[in-house]
């Protein structure tokens, strides 16, 4: 087994062990932190498909995080008020069922990514960064001025949504759901990276002309990658909203896009477990340094600077070394 595989196992077990310990020690706050790690990691796993595998520097993944959040908020608020979303031509009611909410979140963010990607992938470099950012900001201002769902104040959901057979209000059970989804997403991403699609996507990142010359259109490959990436980040958004039982336009904020990107870079761009390591480090710093100083982000900035300058593979790269060429 490679060093990276061992490290990945350690990270996965660590993220499971900490909340289990907290559960035994009756520390629900720690479980909530671990749940945040799992959810942010999932958002990062999504971004990592575009950013790491595809080399697409999306500075607008908050758009999908927010869409996932609002998918949950809108469906749950209608279930809460017993008012259907629409009655004509078909009756659509709200729901408290997590699986249904997840499905809606995934489909909605994938559709949004199809539109945003189709337009923004015609550009590259700094223009791509700016266009993706612009789309996320558009949604941010739209939700602020959309009174039906709370506008600037956002939406509060009183009860966490339900999952068959589980009590989702119990922190450890909700953590288990998020953790299982994260593992499934990691498994999917690992397969994706080694699939025909993954090979073409990675090649398009390195040399688009080469990919075209063998008869594959890089634009299509990138668009599909962008959609898959957004769907996972959207799913994370739905879980994040459920964790907080609250959605607001802040989920669309550019700082959210930045945070997701920061945790991917901290953990290791294009490394399978990079986002997990990065999310864990991010939450750890937020809570440890945040307890010492209000200006903890200064230290985060310094750390990020160090990673970018001296450890391009992030935390995973630092420990596991250069990526083995997979074949």
């Amino acid at each position: 087994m490679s060093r990276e595989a061992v490290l990945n196992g350690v990270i996965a077990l660590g993220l499971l062990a900490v909340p289990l310990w907290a559960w035994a020690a009756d520390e629900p706050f720690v479980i909530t932190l671990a749940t945040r790690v799992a959810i942010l990691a999932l958002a990062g796993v999504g971004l990592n498909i575009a950013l790491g595998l595809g080399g697409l520097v999306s500075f607008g993944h908050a758009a999908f995080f927010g869409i996932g959040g609002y998918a949950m908020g809108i469906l749950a608020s209608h279930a809460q008020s017993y008012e259907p979303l629409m009655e004509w031509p078909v009756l659509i009611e709200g729901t408290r069922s997590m699986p249904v909410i997840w499905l809606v979140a995934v489909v909605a963010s994938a559709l949004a990514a199809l539109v945003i990607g189709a337009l923004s992938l015609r550009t590259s470099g700094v223009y791509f960064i700016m266009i993706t950012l612009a789309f996320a900001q558009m949604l941010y201002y739209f939700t602020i001025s959309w009174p039906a769902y709370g506008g600037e104040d956002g939406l509060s959901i009183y009860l966490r949504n339900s999952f068959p057979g589980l009590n989702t209000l119990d922190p450890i059970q909700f953590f288990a759901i998020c953790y299982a989804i994260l593992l499934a997403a990691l498994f999917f991403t690992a397969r994706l990276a080694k699939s025909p699609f993954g090979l073409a996507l990675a090649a398009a990142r390195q040399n688009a002309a080469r990919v075209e010359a063998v008869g594959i259109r890089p634009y299509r490959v990138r668009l599909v990658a962008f959609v898959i990436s957004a769907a996972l980040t959207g799913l994370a958004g739905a879980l994040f909203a459920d964790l907080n039982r609250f959605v607001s336009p802040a989920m669309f904020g550019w700082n959210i896009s930045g945070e997701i990107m920061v945790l991917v870079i901290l953990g290791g761009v294009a490394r399978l477990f990079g986002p997990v390591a990065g999310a864990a480090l991010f939450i750890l710093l937020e809570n440890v340094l945040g307890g010492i100083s209000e200006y903890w982000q200064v230290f985060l900035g310094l750390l990020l600077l160090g990673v970018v300058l001296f450890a391009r593979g992030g935390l995973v790269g630092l420990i596991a070394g250069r990526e083995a060429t997979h074949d």
Partner: protein
Amino acid sequence: MTEPVLEIRDIRKAFGALKASDGISLDLREGEIHALIGPNGAGKSTLIQQIAGGLRPDSGTVHFLGEDVTALPAAARARMGLARTFQISSLAMEHTVLQNLVLGALGARGGVFRFFRPVMKDGALLEAAREAMAAVGLEELARTRVADLSHGQRRQLEVAVALVLKPRAFLMDEPMAGLGLEGSRQMTRFLDGLRAEAPILLVEHDMDAVFALADRISVLVYGRVIATGTPREIRADSEVRRAYLGEEDMA
């Protein structure tokens, strides 16, 4: 006579006042190597780009296998069987030799949008990749990253990726560039055998190679083909001598 595999009719392309292609017509027939020569700035690369699909001509048409492909993007032409090699090696540098070839085989076969099966365990793709690797003699470097290959090995891989596409025509932009004497000789021998598989439109500066290989030569000067003919005819052509070759090379 059979229809040419590739036919360029009256292609024009201007960049501002510069006429990079000024009414170029030429064709590529089954079984031949057709060399395209000309001094620097004659418009060879612009022409290659227009044939491959990277640039749209202002007017004129490109026919490939009897079809008008002028409006098709590069990827579509590649899928029809037009394989190009680049003047400067254009490969996925972080990938291995084998991965670059499997990518080529994947492009040729189709089925890019598959997300679960490991591509490097796909028997048919590996088989095609190994075959091309053996043809250029890169088997031992299968697991080497392209970034760690020598310049000459990258040129070989560039040709191997074109080969793995099982194309109907090759478009080769200076395959000998930077190869050195022995490398050029090997490549010349290799291309010599290749014309039986598919005809080659060859842009090349190495005159030894061109005159050794070409069935026909076209001379491009200032965006116009000033002569097309057999190596013997080109050698004898006075306009070509004046414009390009220089008297001393003709001895």
